[in-house]
């Protein structure tokens, strides 16, 4: 046990030591939900991001107060995303909850966001009134849809708004061939690589994924996905791991995926 912790600490320490000189990261998939607020306070979050060399982080929270708390502490670092969940547990109920759209409209009228999400929607549920409403809200406010979904749901997003901008969470956990097919079909579809390890191992980019990154270098972003409070303590290690496999790509492609795409698409502080 001690050994395991010590090893991870060493890995973390190595990440800290070189963060200043290493490739910056735009982390496009983070959450700061209510159960994290006391165990990983906002100042500690900012410190973790700094140690990891994460220059900006797109954050959504259940509820959205968490995102605001981080913005208050680090407005230049936190890129706010509006989540349709007020607490944990709404992940599987929000799709049919009549209070969700008024809740989103209220927050959109009060604060600036760059995206709505991350929300979870699959298959034909993407045609339910709530999801349709979210697509229309995104269109109205010029926001990205951060969609944890299968390819079917993504297709439905674009059917509802052909000009929608969709960030496909976890790249749909799809095969790279399918992802390339979707990226060719939808020019405003972007993919985050959060929670994926299939694209790289031992610092080497996997065949299939390499072709995807080289064909669409402007369409991928990285993300840690801090879906539990504990995972904030994985951010530094995740950034180190990301830099390892990014180094296996041409430097211009690596820079784009590491942070340039995030900066270009989602911008800096709001």
């Amino acid at each position: 046990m001690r050994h395991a912790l010590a090893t991870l600490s060493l890995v973390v320490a190595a990440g800290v030591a070189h963060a200043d000189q290493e490739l910056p990261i735009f982390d496009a998939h983070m959450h700061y939900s209510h159960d994290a607020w006391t165990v990983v306070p906002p100042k500690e979050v900012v410190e973790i991001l700094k140690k990891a060399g994460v220059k900006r982080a797109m954050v959504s929270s259940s509820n959205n107060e968490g995102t605001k708390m981080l913005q208050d502490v680090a407005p230049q670092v936190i890129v706010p995303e509006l989540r349709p969940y007020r607490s944990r547990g709404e992940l599987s109920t929000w799709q049919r909850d009549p209070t969700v759209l008024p809740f989103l409209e209220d927050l959109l009228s009060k604060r600036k966001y760059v995206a709505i999400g991350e929300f979870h929607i699959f298959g034909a549920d993407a045609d339910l009134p709530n999801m349709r409403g979210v697509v229309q809200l995104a269109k109205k406010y010029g926001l990205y849809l951060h969609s944890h979904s299968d390819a079917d749901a993504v297709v439905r997003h674009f059917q509802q708004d052909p000009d929608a901008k969709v960030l496909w969470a976890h790249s749909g956990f799809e095969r790279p061939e399918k992802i390339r097919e979707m990226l060719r079909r939808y020019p405003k579809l972007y993919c985050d690589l959060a929670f994926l390890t299939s694209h790289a191992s031992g610092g080497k980019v996997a065949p299939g994924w390499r072709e995807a990154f080289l064909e669409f270098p402007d369409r991928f972003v990285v993300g840690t996905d801090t879906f539990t409070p504990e995972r904030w303590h994985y951010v530094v290690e995740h950034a180190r791991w990301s830099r390892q496999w990014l180094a296996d790509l041409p430097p211009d492609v690596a820079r784009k995926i590491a942070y340039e795409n995030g900066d270009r698409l989602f911008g800096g502080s709001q």
Partner: protein
Amino acid sequence: MRRALLTTALLAALAAPAAAQATLDWSEAEIRLVGQHGPWPPPPARDPSNRVSATPVGIVLGEHLFSDARLSGDGLVSCATCHQEGRDWSDGRALGKGRADLDRRTPSLWNVGYSHWFGWSGAADSLWAHTIKPILDAREMAGSSARVARLLREDKELACGYERAFGRKPDGDDEQMLVNAAKALAAFQATLVSPRTRFDDFRDALMAGDREAAARYGQSEQRGLKLFIGEANCNACHFGPRFTNGEFGDIGIGFFVRPGEVDAGRLGGIAALADSPFNLLGRYNDDASGANARRTRHVRRLHSNFGEFRVPGLRQVGRSAAYMHNGSLATVEDVVRHYSEVSPDRLHSDGTPLVRALGLSAGQSSDLVAFLRSLDAAPPPRPSPPPLCP
């Protein structure tokens, strides 16, 4: 035959004495699934990486060393301090305690010889390598290779036992002596096989189509078993005769150790395994073919490994509280409640999640607990270890 078994329930209930019970209706598919949890006991474990595995002389040396506190830095802590025979080879505590308080529960040693990863995080790929860790860990036994080697060289009985086990006097370098002590200890631990249970009797009867014997298994236990292999899908991870796949999972248990510090679980285990000079890719593996190092060679880290812990076997589960890697659940009932109510937000999957809130009724929970307790059995008393050099 099986169809006949299914239809005997009513007849049996009518014809049998009042104390006898009926078997539930078991489908062919269910019988096949139940059958996969046996037979029990399995053949003795044999570890090709350990030259004294399954050898009587290695086992007896290991049994003597197991309760020898001189292996520890202060001479006060032995393996048996935490792995107590009378507590099903654990310590009955929520969290372990060696020379200092530990962050994980002391796992029971029942059936440990059949595993392929060891420890809650799988930081070792052999039982002997895993055994070295508590000997050296400052919070557990705080021993050293020099101390172990000196003990084996200077204690006449141990030196004799060592020579019988390894075919040479204890004259190797200190690290080799430590490894060999651990191999003897592992040989002993691999003999700790849990006894047959009422579940095993039912399983064998069901497989043999023995209606009368199968009907001795309680109805609540049978309902719980049906849940276990059916709706609750527990056997997705807890499968096979030991009720474990031997791998790792995140079942929604928190893994903060203290403020600002987490137990990285399997992620840290993979890193520790790679760093260990005692892993199966190293020079101490006695299997010249290297075939047993396949898992170690190919294991790769996943983001999901962060906070994953080993899937424990379930034999003797009711006798080895507390539960989970951090002892955070006190009773079997608490474990069942956890699976009934686990928050989906703490889980992440790239498809259909293996773990989901089961939403069990009170009756279902009670049945599942009854089944789990049917995996318990009182072990027979162990004889004292034979002398090292009779």
